[in-house]
């Protein structure tokens, strides 16, 4: 059953976009990936409106004290198995906000992240490559 589910995840992954405390740039680049120049909808990748419909969570920005419980709740609401992809340098190591009083540390302390896409912001090509790598991990 688990293997079957993972196989199902590989085809046409539906994506929910969670902006923790980002500067908006990664979010815009994610939307850019959907617009005509890259148009990932032709591979069946769709941005959905609810975490309950999603196979993949795209997280952007640093986690702060106010967004941490909300992001965890969104993660719990997502049907498992699901993939979590961290977009941007902020998700990798908090970027330059590491010393801020309101930032609670990198993502891997709080939820399992499958693939990190570094860059500030990563180019749309890099985001597509990250999603492809995440799907390849499923075997």
């Amino acid at each position, binding site marked *: 059953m688990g293997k079957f589910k993972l196989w199902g995840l590989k085809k046409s992954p539906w994506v929910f976009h969670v902006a923790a405390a980002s*500067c908006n740039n990664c979010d815009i680049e994610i939307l850019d990936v959907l617009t005509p120049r890259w148009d990932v909808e032709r591979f069946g990748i769709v941005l959905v409106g609810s975490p309950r419909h999603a196979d993949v969570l795209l997280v952007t920005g640093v986690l702060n004290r106010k967004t941490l419980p909300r992001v965890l709740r969104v993660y719990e609401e997502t049907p498992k198995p699901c993939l979590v992809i961290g977009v941007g340098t902020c998700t990798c190591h908090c970027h330059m906000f590491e010393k801020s009083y309101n930032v609670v540390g990198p993502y891997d302390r709080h939820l399992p992240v499958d693939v990190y896409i570094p860059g500030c912001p990563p180019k749309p090509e890099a985001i597509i490559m990250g999603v492809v790598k995440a799907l390849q991990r499923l075997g």
Partner: protein
Amino acid sequence: MNEINSKYRIVPIGPYHPLQEEPEFFKLIVEGERVIDLEINLGYNHRGHEYLAQTMTFDQVPFLVERICGICSNSHPYAYCLAVEDICGIKPPPRAQYIRTIIGELERIHSHYLWLGLAGHFIGYNTVWMWVWRYREPLLDLFELIMGNRNHYAINKIGGVRRDILPEDYPKIEEYLDLLEEKTTMFTKAILDDPVIRARLEGVGILKKEDAIAYGVLGPTARASGIAIDVRKDDPYDAYDKVDWDIIVFEEGDVLAKAKVRLLECFESIKIVRQCLKNMPEGPIETRIEDIPAGEGIGRHEAPRGEVFHYVRSDGSNMPVRHKIRAPSYMNIASNVAAVKGYSIADAALILAAVDPCYCCTERTIVYENGVKKYTGKDLLRLSWEKTEELKRKYRR
């Protein structure tokens, strides 16, 4: 809202919802389909920029303030550099001033295109979104050509700019500008002639002039409500007083007027960039600064959403002692309360987005401790009163 009885219902929007990219929380209080009140709860994006700026050297801060917001990633460093130059009492060389103006205006076009696309998305007209964002891409290519990155440009530095625009790039920029002008004309015609868009935007979310003044709104939101306010005209800096352009003002105050202001501003921006390219002076691109004296300075820049204000105080060391930022959305978001009352829930989403809110710019001012809000507005007011009283006692003879 203690007086709410069973007749009213609450519709929560957020913090994670399909509509907008950033986390924010709106509580719509509705009676049937009609919105009668709005509560705004922000602070999800608080990252402590002002504190972090005080732990960095003056040269590092532009990179930090650039990451306040990805859309205005030129405006914040621009205003910061103006503030520090105000402390030093210097002006960048003319060529640097022209380059800054060009980048500022190109950023305005990119931001207005972005809003236009998202507005189409909010009314469920995804064709507008796809078309507009398709023609935003050449602009990002232009940024990559001039500055080497699509979004965070890192062009501003204290005393000038980091990169020159090479003369061999001028024809390429002109080419892109021609394309942008053609496409902006197309969008203006398409949006103003489309009966569907007119039906959704016209007469919706009217922000009256007196409300706009009372809330102190800025930028295109104010200019769509009949207030001709623009830092570029009121307090010209860099090359803005050396070029010929107009402020776009509409009286209606509805969402259509806001869209019209933004569309027509794109033409003005193209005009400014063309004139700057034509009259670009030769010379160096930065003034060398040995050290920053003690003192305080302010910088104001008209960002795509309104006036960005930066205040920097220096004590003669290599780090700012205080750095205060006010982003335009801080004023504009509050005006949603006046604009959204009386309209249906279906229009609320569009009205809330019509001020082009930028939450990541706004949310740096609330104080939190262990996840609990320490100071509310009232508390800060009380603290301020206490301080005033204390000072009065201290200095009264």
